[in-house]
């Protein structure tokens, strides 16, 4: 069975004034839920809030952080404002993986040099 929760790297506190980059914004479980739902379908704030155990203003705040991080974008559709994944997300994915592999390969190098041949 596959686990359905996520534990992403680069978790960092959303200090005021600090813009989270790319996937660091997804360290928060509610934002991951918002992101995941938008991956399936464009939705308004109201539609998102209806399926989540948080208030509408809280959803708006999460959307703002996701938008600032370049993961989500919004557009006016008639009288509604709908949110969807930002097409530049693929760039965020690349940057995210680039940083992950930098960390992983540096740790691999250290481990390989520490090991002895027994």
């Amino acid at each position: 069975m596959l686990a359905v929760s996520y534990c992403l790297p680069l978790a960092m506190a959303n200090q005021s004034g600090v813009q989270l980059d790319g996937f660091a914004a997804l360290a928060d479980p509610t934002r991951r839920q918002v992101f995941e739902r938008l991956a399936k379908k464009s939705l308004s704030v109201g539609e998102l809030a209806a399926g989540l155990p948080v208030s509408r203003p809280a959803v708006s705040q999460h959307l703002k952080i996701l938008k600032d991080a370049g993961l989500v974008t919004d557009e006016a559709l008639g009288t509604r404002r709908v949110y969807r994944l930002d097409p530049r997300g693929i760039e965020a994915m690349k940057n995210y993986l680039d940083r992950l592999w930098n960390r992983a390969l540096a740790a691999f190098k250290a481990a390989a040099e520490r090991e002895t041949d027994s």
Partner: protein
Amino acid sequence: MISIRKQLTVEAPQERAFRVFTANMGLWWPRDHHIGVAPLKDCVVEPKANGRWYELGEDGTTCEWGKVLAWDPPRRLLLAWQLGPDFKYDPALLTEVEVTFTVIGPKSTRVDFEHRNIERFGEAAERLRGGMDTGWGQILESYVRSAVAEAA
């Protein structure tokens, strides 16, 4: 094709470099990067073609990451990274991670790393949307085309 490439020199014999990369991945993989609910216990690369690549949680549960496409010790490893943009295993997504280990001395190995087919995350994202609209996929395609044009 959008790729991430890295090259590094490891002060270790080729065999050890390959062994630490594969058999000991759990030793060096960033502990905070995993998809399971439980804390990460180990990352497993099964030592054979068509082997699994998965994480093992401290509670004994496993989460697939992908598979082994080519197993050629101690020179080359080809993995399939199949975690999608939502960090879930997606069997329809196949991005390749190729690692080659080249002898440059008795205790020195050059490691060439490439994670390629990054553009396929766009297709996976479109599948996640259930084909409800093609907006994202189309924009991604044009993004990929312009990125390729830029690289040329």
